[in-house]
C-alpha cells in the first residue's frame, strides 16, 4: 500500500520520466496522470500501464497502486474526424 511521501515514477514512451511524491493517497490515478500527461507533452487519450504492460484502472487510488512505476501510453486513433487537441502545456 502506497503512503504519503512515497515516490512514484511516471514514464513517457521514448525515455522521459517524471518522479514525484504522493501527497494525497486517496487521489485517483486518473487525476494525477492527466496532469502529468499534459505536462509531458502527450495529446489525446492514453492508457496507464504497469511495468508488465498491464492496464491500470484510472479510478485506482494512489494508495492502491500495485506498482510505483507507471507508463503513460498514448492511444493511436487515425481518423478523419476532428476530436482531440494538442496539449497546451
Amino acid at each position, binding site marked *: 500500500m502506497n503512503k504519503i511521501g512515497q515516490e512514484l515514477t511516471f514514464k513517457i514512451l521514448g525515455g522521459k520520466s517524471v518522479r514525484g511524491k504522493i501527497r494525497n493517497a486517496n487521489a485517483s490515478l486518473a487525476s494525477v496522470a492527466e496532469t502529468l500527461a499534459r*505536462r509531458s507533452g502527450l495529446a489525446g487519450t492514453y492508457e496507464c500501464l504497469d511495468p508488465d504492460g498491464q492496464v491500470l484502472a484510472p479510478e485506482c487510488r494512489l494508495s492502491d497502486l500495485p506498482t510505483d512505476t507507471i507508463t*503513460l501510453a498514448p492511444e493511436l486513433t487515425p*481518423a478523419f474526424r476532428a476530436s482531440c487537441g494538442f496539449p497546451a502545456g
Partner: protein
Amino acid sequence: MNTLTVKDGTAVNRLLVAVGQEDSLAGYRILEMPTGFPALVKELAWRAVAADASKAGRPWQLHMRRDERAEPTGPVIVMEARTGADAALLAVLPVPARNFGCIADAMARELNMKGTYQFYVQVLSSDDPFVGEWDDRRRGDADFEIVADTGSELVLPGGFTASPGTERRTVDPADGDWLRCVFTAGAFGEFIAAAETEHSVERHWAGAGHVELSDGVYRAVIERLVELPAEAAGKAWVVTRGRDWSRCQAGIGDALVAYLHLHPREIETRPIRPAPSSNDAVIAWNIETSTPNLAVYPIALFGATADAAAGDVAAHGYVNGLLKRIPLEVTHDE
C-alpha cells in the same frame, strides 16, 4: 527587436502563449519548450548535428528570442541551439509566431472559446519570476509533488548515417530542402500492396529504419513496416490501444522513424487527400514524443497502385512547427 542576453548556464526556453477575444485575455500557458513542442525542439537539434556531426551526443541549451519582423513572416521566435559554458551557437531556427497556432488552438478548445480568437507568443527566460510563480503553482499539486522531470534535458541526437545513401527515385516532389521521407524499395512495395487491396479499413503501421544526414538534408529511411493491432471504432477509423502501442514502440525503440496509414478516397462523398486529419496530427504529435528522430508520416489512399502512386501517396513531417507535405523518395535497392 526583443533581445534577451544569454547568461552562462541559463537557458531561455520558456514560451508564453496567450489567447483572447475582442481585446480580452481568455487564458495563457507557459510552455517549457522541450515538452511544450517536441517536434520543433528536435528539428533544431537535428539541424545542429546536420551542421556539425561531431557535436552528436553533447548536451545543449535552447535559447529563444522574439524578433519583430514585417510581413510576410510577421513576428518570429528565433530558436538557437547552444552548447558549452560559452554558449557557443550551433544552429538557428526562426519560427514565425503564427506557427504556434496549434498550441493556441488547443487552448481555445479547452477554454471552450467560440468564433475568431487572437493569440500572442512571447519568450520568457527560465529565471523570470513570472516563470517561477508558474512552476511553483504547477509543482505544488495537492495530490502529487513533482521532484524530478527528465523531459527538459537536451542532448544532441546521434545514431544517424552521414553518407547520402543509395540512389533514389522521387515519387512525390513536394517542396522542401530539409526533411525527406525515404522508403526502401521493399518497404514501399509492401505499403503500396496493402493500399492497393484495402477498401474499408484505415490500417496503420509503425515504420522502423534509420536516419541519414547529408548535405544539410535529413532523410528518414523506412526499412520495415510493423503493422499495429487496431480495433474498428467507427466508420473509417480505428483505435490502437495504448498497451499495444507501448509494446510495439518498445520493440522498435530508437529505430522508429515513421508512422504510416491508409485513407479512404472519400468520406460521405467528400474527396479525401493523402494528408493528415486533425486526429492524425494528434498521433503525429505523440509519435514525436516517443522517438528521438524526426518522424515522417506517409499516407496512401485506398486502392493506390505503384503505377499511380503520385497523387495517391504523400508524406508529411514537422517543418518549422507545421505538419507539411515533404518530398517522398524510394531507393532502387531491395
